[in-house]
């Protein structure tokens, strides 16, 4: 895993804590070197401080997301709407507000790294009949009209969660629990932002969603198969 943070003391402390929890972290302090380090170490997960010298955390986030779907967790000192939403929109899967407890961080990381050991062949189909979205769950592949759709693991999990129960309406809180692994209510903006990102990839017209539908005042559900 890769930790991008400019504060050496925090980085070192993170290293200690993460190693005790069985991770093998590598560190980079400058945003400008983050991409190179990412390509070299090919981490399973990235911890990214939003405020970095050189290149801003937001740009690093966009850069990584452009190349891979590796889970990214932002470390942020600001919990204001604008900062968090900006981070999420640039591709971060989740965020932790400083000061966080190590247990909380590890829980968030584990939730992102959770592997769905699905050996049973499972194929899900949702969306309009003339152009369905086909999800191959064990292979982690999604396709529409015969073309593969590249989703990050988080987006994939979100889509699978909705697709497994096509007629059920999921509240944002339920999705937070099932997809992000939050046990008690957290920031519903996470859900909103990622639904938007998911739609931009699977929908023909994200303004008129057919696959992930909004149920006003309640939450989201999968479109009819």
């Amino acid at each position: 895993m890769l930790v991008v943070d400019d504060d050496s003391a925090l980085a070192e402390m993170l290293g200690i804590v993460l190693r005790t929890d069985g991770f093998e972290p590598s560190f980079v302090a400058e945003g400008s070197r983050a991409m190179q380090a990412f390509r070299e170490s090919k981490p399973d997960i990235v911890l990214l401080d939003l405020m970095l010298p050189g290149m801003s955390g937001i740009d690093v986030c966009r850069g990584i997301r452009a190349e891979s779907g590796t889970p990214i967790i932002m470390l942020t000192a600001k919990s204001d709407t604008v900062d968090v939403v900006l981070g999420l929109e640039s591709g971060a899967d989740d965020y932790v507000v400083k000061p966080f407890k190590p247990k909380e961080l590890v829980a968030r990381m584990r939730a992102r790294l959770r592997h769905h050991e699905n050996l049973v062949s499972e194929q899900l189909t949702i969306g309009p009949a003339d152009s369905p979205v086909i999800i191959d769950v064990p292979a982690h592949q999604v396709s529409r009209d015969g073309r593969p759709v590249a989703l990050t693991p988080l987006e994939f999990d979100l889509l699978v969660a909705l697709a497994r129960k096509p007629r059920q309406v999921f509240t944002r809180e339920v999705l937070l629990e099932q997809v992000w692994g939050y046990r008690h209510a957290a920031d519903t903006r996470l859900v909103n932002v990622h639904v938007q990102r998911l739609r931009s990839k699977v929908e023909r017209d994200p303004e008129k969603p057919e696959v992930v539908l909004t149920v006003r005042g309640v939450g989201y559900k999968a479109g009819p198969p």
Partner: protein
Amino acid sequence: MSGERTTDTTSWLYRRVLHPIRLAADAVVRAWQSSLQLRVAATTLVITGVAVVVIGVFIVDQVAGGVLEAKRNAAIGQARLGQESARTSLAETDTSVPGDVEAARTKITADLTANGQSAGLFTTALESESPSANEITPSVAIPDGLRRLVQRSNLAVQYAPVRDGDRTVPGLIVGEPVSARTGVLDLYYLFPLTAEEQTIALVQRTVAVSGLALVLLVVGIALLVTRQVVRPVRVVSQTAGRLAAGDLSQRIRVHGADDIARLGRSFNDMAGSLQRQIRRLEDLSRLQRRFTSDVSHELRTPLTTIRMASELLHAHRDEFPPALSRSVELLNAELDRFESLLGDLLEISRYDAGVARLESETADLRGVVQATVEASRLLAERQGSELIVDLPDEPVPVDMDSRRVERILRNLVGNALDHGEGKPVEIRVRADADAVAVAVRDHGVGLRPGEAGLVFNRFWRGDPSRSRLTGGTGLGLAISLEDARLHDGWLQAWGERGKGAQFRLTLPRVAGHTLLASPLPLVPDEDVHEADSFEFEEEDA
């Protein structure tokens, strides 16, 4: 029936007559009070009007007096002149023969008229000392007063109406006794005042017209002058209004160097100085807020490191000697407090910077209250206080930011438990059409007089000697007050020494509505007497 009709009539009278009159009167009063120009014009009108009327009356009076005086002198002169002719004519006249008398009268009239210097003699009348009805010249009515004077052998003059053909015109009658062959006759000269009347009327008209013109001129001048003064004053007042509304760049265009221009210039100077001061203060306060926010953020990264280190130590505290182990525990606990203090500080700085935003949704207030109560159970058990919740049966939908409202309630309940001395804490929710209220009551130490207004101050402590059990940051109520204000709501406190305290949160049901009343009293019913309460109501923003 008749009673009803009376009422109908009264109301009709009121509606159709009195009410419009009152409205008109109100409008006039308003105009009077609001327009300096109108007041000056009206005052000028009244004063000039009175002056012109007085002067006019005086002039007309003088002219009329002069004209009449001249006429009178001329008339008397003519009468004297006519006396000779009359005496000769009447010397041969027998008063008892009407025909003779008439002939003599005609002759006298002819003599006098023929005489060049006529004072406008119209006719004469002759009467015996004791005229019988048929003797009196029908066209002439001699006033009795004049007749009596003449009979006392005087030359007498009186103004009296005289008949000129069909018309009765104002006239002057001069009477004198004349000795006839037999007895004495009263000879009256009648002068019509038609010409004088016309002269006087002309003078009256002239005076009235010029007086009116003068009044209009003066009022016009007054209007013009006041306009010149009032207009710049209005401009100043409008500009001041815009300045007060926050547009600090407003200035007055100044021409010339007169007093008005000086007013404008001083005003502009004042506005400029105000603008500079306010800018400076704004910059300072922005800097200050920025600083608070930055400090809070900057503290977070080292705090995270400390936190992690402390957690690591805490996880291994069993392996340490007792003193070290306890130290780690204290470190961990105080870090929690430090963290919440930092969080509250950041929240307050958000309010100070004006960046706090309401994320309003319609939700059932009861749910929020129940969530708060559930979250406070543990603390309540630790304090030994019972939480008594009194909720309405129907849902209470309110436009609110549930996170903030829950934070307010958690603060209030925490505060009540903290100061409740183990006695029950009551939470009551009530709603009416416009507003909802939550009151949190404790029966603890209460508040001293005057303290109800201080509890919302930052870092205020009721009793510094008391230790705080919940480890509050001292910012909780200050944040709650800001949260309530953000909702256009009220947060108020009441308390009395030994009787406990009550905090009441009132929120409008529909976002943006102005609160007028709360569904719950601020002072608990059983303590209405001699209450020390502090209303923390919103001023107009």
